[in-house]
């Protein structure tokens, strides 16, 4: 998350100019888990998601010499994963021409928050509940910004939504969460 953008660019540069395998492995370690999570939300199968993300990274290695021309590597990885996922779904089901904004999302499995035992505070418990209850698309936008560290405009681009829609969905998500915590806090005071 706070990994310096600079550092990602350094990895990119090392892969492009000196075929640095260690840098490539670091790039994979840094992004593969979250790309698999994102991909799985689309294709809904763990194995398939892993293969797709592998393919994305194989493409990176094959095109390493031109990697320095990629402006924003992180976004490039996400867009590639999205495109590969859509291609996969289209190849499975030819009569549909699926667009990313029409997809069913499997948000439950990979964007789940940790199951917390009695350790979290009451307010936190309410907060996590409220996150679970967000509608799928709203939750995906929320999680892509929160957990994948994408900018709001990047999420819009990735999901083929207008920037305004992403803004609104995020604001709605935060408002719902705040209201849930607020309600729990008031309840706690009354008790």
């Amino acid at each position, binding site marked *: 998350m706070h990994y310096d953008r600079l*550092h990602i660019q350094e990895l990119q540069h090392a892969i492009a100019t000196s075929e640095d395998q260690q840098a490539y*492995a670091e790039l994979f370690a840094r992004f593969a888990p979250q790309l698999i999570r994102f991909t799985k939300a689309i294709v809904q199968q763990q194995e398939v998601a*892993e293969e797709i993300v592998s393919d994305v990274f194989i493409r990176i290695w094959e095109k390493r010499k031109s990697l320095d021309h990629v402006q924003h590597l992180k976004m490039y990885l996400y867009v590639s994963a999205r495109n590969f996922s859509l291609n996969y779904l289209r190849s499975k089901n030819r009569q549909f021409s699926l667009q990313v904004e029409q997809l069913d999302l499997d948000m439950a499995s990979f964007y789940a928050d940790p199951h917390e*035992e009695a*350790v*979290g505070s009451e307010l936190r418990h309410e907060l996590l509940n409220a*996150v679970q209850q967000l509608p799928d698309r709203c939750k995906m936008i929320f999680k892509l910004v929160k957990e994948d560290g994408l900018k*709001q405009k990047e999420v819009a681009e990735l999901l083929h939504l207008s920037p305004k829609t992403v803004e609104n969905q995020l604001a*709605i998500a935060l408002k719902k969460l705040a209201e849930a915590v607020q309600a729990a806090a008031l309840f706690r005071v009354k008790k």
Partner: protein
Amino acid sequence: MPERIWYLLSLKLSGEATKAELDEFYALLEANPEWETAIQQITRYWLQSPMPTQQAQSGQDLWNKHQQRMQAAGIEWADPELVTTAELEEISLERSTPRIWLWRSLSVAAIFLFALAGWWIFRPASETKREIAAINQNQVSTRPASKTKLTLPDGSKVWLNASSKLTYGNGFGEKHREIWLEGEGYFDVAKNKQIPFVIHTSRMDVRVTGTVFNVRAYAQEPTSETALIEGSVEVTLSNDKSKKFYLKPKQKLVVDEHGLVNGAKEMPSLRVTPAAFTASLQALAKPLEDNQVVETAWVYNMLSFSDESFRQVANKFEKWYAVEIRFEDPELEELRFTGSFRDETLSEALKAMQLTTPGTPFGFVVRERQVTIQKAR
């Protein structure tokens, strides 16, 4: 509550807010203080990284599978044993996970913690060290009110507290294990007798071969500390390399830039005064619970202090709540407090401190991110 605050909050959380938008956000928040608790809970939740789910595989496992697929695609790979590094995850802000993890590590390694400040600004670094720092450096830094957990290339783990910076050169883990810290960190150092792990700070260097420890060293704070919980560690003062200190468990080393040490009389064993720094050894603040000590409480998302001046407590609050605290009356800075907070808001914490001080000698005003502590009227 105007709807716009949620939009502004989203910009703030995703790091996209401009200064004007932040100002607007704080003004709205100030006008609607009843939402402070909710917004703080959301902010904490936001800063927490996702946990791996049960199905999630380890990075190494994914990497191995990926290599097989690469080979199947006909790609020559020079080093099939190459190990992935630089896995980075943010610290869980809840206490459970780091605690479980920590106590497991206790059995295999010693724990020690220490604090240090401002090497980047003050340290008269040797040329070679400066080179390592300047060329190919990797840097991880944290913002106010956020924490990060990271794994270094040698497998050592670090929790980095708020407003801190960690820097290391390429070749870390293979050719050297030297690291520069500004701020506070809690380290679990992987065992490696051949390559010692050295932490450089403005006032001291700490050398270990395999142990766990925490470091507090903010440039703007007058003292730096190294406190050891278990195991052993060697500390060298930056301004006098001949002075070495070997800490025993439950001791901490406090280094002061001016030779002034708070509470010197409490120090049981050792006090020296080299040219510019004073170093002293003292016992760790007494345990809170479960062998926790005040010095490491932040790892469990607890803000703790033990018989510390209001100014020292305020320094911790500034990082914890991302605020600036100003005292109208310097006398108030000398009030002493012992306590710990976890989920409390800043206002709740200050109110609790008011309540526990006889005569309630201070009041406070929170204005945006500026807090003023005043004499009670």
